[in-house]
């Protein structure tokens, strides 16, 4: 489990990472096209979006009842349901399952929740080797990197660097930098693991309450391998994965895939209702479903914050965010990045420890506009800021924000007295002439260096609008403001 720290340092570094930036530019431009092409294949795209939002809202509001229903149905299907209060509790139980069965290694499907709870480390510390099997996740695991993007965790890594790491770890026999050959090498490497696999671990995209069914979405086939080959399967889900019915799940699938990759449907979607049926010769003989809380029931107490639990992890908000498009996923410090990280991480790790995440947002609202789960990220971010300021004011009344209050007092005076306003504009213009360069003010001698450390101020223009307008009238022979073009 990691918490965000060093946001500014990493963001500054990443702004200078040309390779990441080339990719991010492609992502933010190309993705909008992919997504809208995908959504436009709905008969009524807005209805489809409204419906998915209503389903997620409903699912979160009824979460306790739905979870209970899911656990009962999954149990009736023959799955063993294990509950976990927190990361440690979840890891202990999964490690216990591996040790009881004496497995030497497990293969994993890409899963955010297992990253959140730090499962790989827990398994490795108890002597169980872990193979990530999603190609991107295999790369990040091999290179010891955090995920760069929710969907493509290693999509920014130059292939020659991947080749070097694979060569060093013996995945390939001679250095290579061809993306396809690198991928095929991983296929060959993991095929032997799948074939001899005794225990697999996957995440869960959706858990259907009415039928006790687990749904997984993927393109590579690694999750299908993990759900087919070993005799023991462990599916790990956080409590918010539950949806009411199969019909709801099918609609969410349509919306999820279109928002995630622009596909109508991902390559493989598997629906598991219990372990393998009678007489089946492959598929799991035993299926464990680990339902992880890890602070979500606490988040649930707050009716406003609760909406973060609607997230279906499609990644649309990352791909549309102008801040993510410049800094990528690393500054967010850990598992969740982009707007969904900026609203979820503060609730998981504490507002006071994650200030940079929700401060580094322009409140432009692009994420809210695309979100198929109906999350209002800008409103949450605004509330986090408010709560942080209020907490600070309580901790040190008077001291915090004294300069800000003084500045607001001056602003109030100017705004209510036109003469004062004009005088202020004139002096600001003078200050800009001295301090500005290239149309921006980047530093200030007035003790405001904190503000300028991460912002530039556009310089005040040489003339005000009114001055420009007057000059324009004079040039055109005194035609009044009412005299538009004829």
């Amino acid at each position, binding site marked *: 489990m990691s918490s965000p720290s060093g946001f500014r340092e990493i963001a500054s570094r990443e702004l200078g990472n040309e390779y990441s930036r080339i990719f991010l530019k492609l992502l933010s431009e190309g993705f909008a096209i992919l997504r809208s092409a995908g959504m436009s294949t709905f008969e009524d795209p807005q209805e489809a979006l409204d419906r998915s939002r209503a389903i997620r809202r409903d699912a979160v509001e009824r*979460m306790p009842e739905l979870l209970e229903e899911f656990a009962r149905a999954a149990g009736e299907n023959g799955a063993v349901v294990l509950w976990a209060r927190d990361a440690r509790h979840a890891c202990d139980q999964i490690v216990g399952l591996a040790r009881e069965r004496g497995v030497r290694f497990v293969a994993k499907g890409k899963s955010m929740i297992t990253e959140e709870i730090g499962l790989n480390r827990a398994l490795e510390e108890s002597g169980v080797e872990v193979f990530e099997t999603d190609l991107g996740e295999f790369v990040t695991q091999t290179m010891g990197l955090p995920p760069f993007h929710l969907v493509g965790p290693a*999509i920014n890594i130059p292939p020659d660097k991947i080749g070097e790491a694979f060569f060093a770890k013996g995945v390939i026999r001679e250095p290579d930098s061809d993306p396809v050959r690198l*991928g095929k090498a991983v296929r060959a490497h993991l095929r032997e693991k799948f*074939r001899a696999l005794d225990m697999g671990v996957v995440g869960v995209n959706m858990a259907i309450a009415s039928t006790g069914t687990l749904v997984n979405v993927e393109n590579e086939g690694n999750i299908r391998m993990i759900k087919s080959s070993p005799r023991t399967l462990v599916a790990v889900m956080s409590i918010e994965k539950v949806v009411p019915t199969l019909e709801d799940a099918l609609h969410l699938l349509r919306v999820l895939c279109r928002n995630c990759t622009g596909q109508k449907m991902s390559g493989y979607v598997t629906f598991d209702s219990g372990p393998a049926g009678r007489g089946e010769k492959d598929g799991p003989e035993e299926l464990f479903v680990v339902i992880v809380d890890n602070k979500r029931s606490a988040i649930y*107490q707050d009716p406003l914050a609760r909406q973060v639990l609607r997230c279906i992890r499609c990644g649309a908000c990352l791909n549309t965010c102008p801040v993510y498009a410049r800094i990528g996923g690393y500054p967010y410090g850990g598992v969740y990045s982009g707007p969904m990280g900026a609203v979820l991480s503060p609730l998981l790790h504490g507002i006071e420890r994650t200030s940079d995440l929700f401060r580094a947002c322009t409140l432009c609202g692009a994420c809210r506009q695309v979100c198929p789960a109906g999350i209002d990220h800008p409103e949450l971010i605004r509330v986090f800021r408010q709560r942080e300021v209020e907490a600070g004011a309580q901790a040190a009344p008077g001291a915090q924000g004294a300069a800000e209050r003084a500045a607001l007092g001056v602003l109030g005076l100017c705004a209510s007295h036109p003469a004062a306003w004009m005088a202020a504009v004139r002096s600001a213009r003078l200050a800009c002439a001295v301090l500005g360069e290239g149309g921006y003010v980047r530093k200030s001698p007035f003790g405001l260096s904190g503000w300028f450390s991460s912002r530039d101020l556009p310089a005040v223009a040489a003339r005000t609008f009114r001055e420009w307008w007057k000059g324009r009238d004079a040039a055109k022979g005194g035609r009044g403001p009412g005299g538009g073009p004829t």
Partner: protein
Amino acid sequence: MNGDAGREILELLRRAPRAGPHRTIQGRPASSGVEGDRAGMVLRFTEEASSQGVTVHRASGGQELAQVLTASVRAQGIRRMVACASGAVSALDLGRWAVETGVEVVDSSRLGDRGAVREAAFTADAALTPADFAVAESGTLVMAFDSDHQRLLSVAAPAHFAVVAIDDLVMSYEEAFERLLRRRKGFAGQVCFITGPSSTSDIQAVQFKGMHGPARLEVILLDTCERKPAGGL
């Protein structure tokens, strides 16, 4: 011990203040605009599946099915195939086809245990399986696994041939599930959607087929009645 954690978590959730009456979701979702007649569905399925890199064939009866398969295995140099002979594949005389083509065919019903299934699936050049349904809206196959139809065949083999009866071509996922539940009287184990071959774009967004699953997927829509072939098109 574990039941306690479950009770605690649910108790905490129940204690939380709830919003007012949540919006009810009414009616069925708008489907993705698929023509309801068979010709329209065949066209749509073929377009959608092709756009995902699937080769779609049509065959009328077992003989044409054999011809389609023969052409494909020859073109791809397939020598060893694992086959699940149930469902729509049963239209094919598998033994005779194997002799005629010289392809070594492992009948999956003879595989005794997990080890044997693994051995057959991981060493075959191709798998031949039935699919329970084909869904036109996205060119998707729906397969329910059971004692006759093993999961590993269609994911571990490098090429997958799926045969689906034309009567099992439906418009939407909802319809496929409704008919599947009726046919199987509920489902246990796994149901799988397959839309195109295995693929990835995880390194530098370069896409290629055949990451962990098959690099090739061929679907044969099978007319089982005596109707003239391609009459529906």
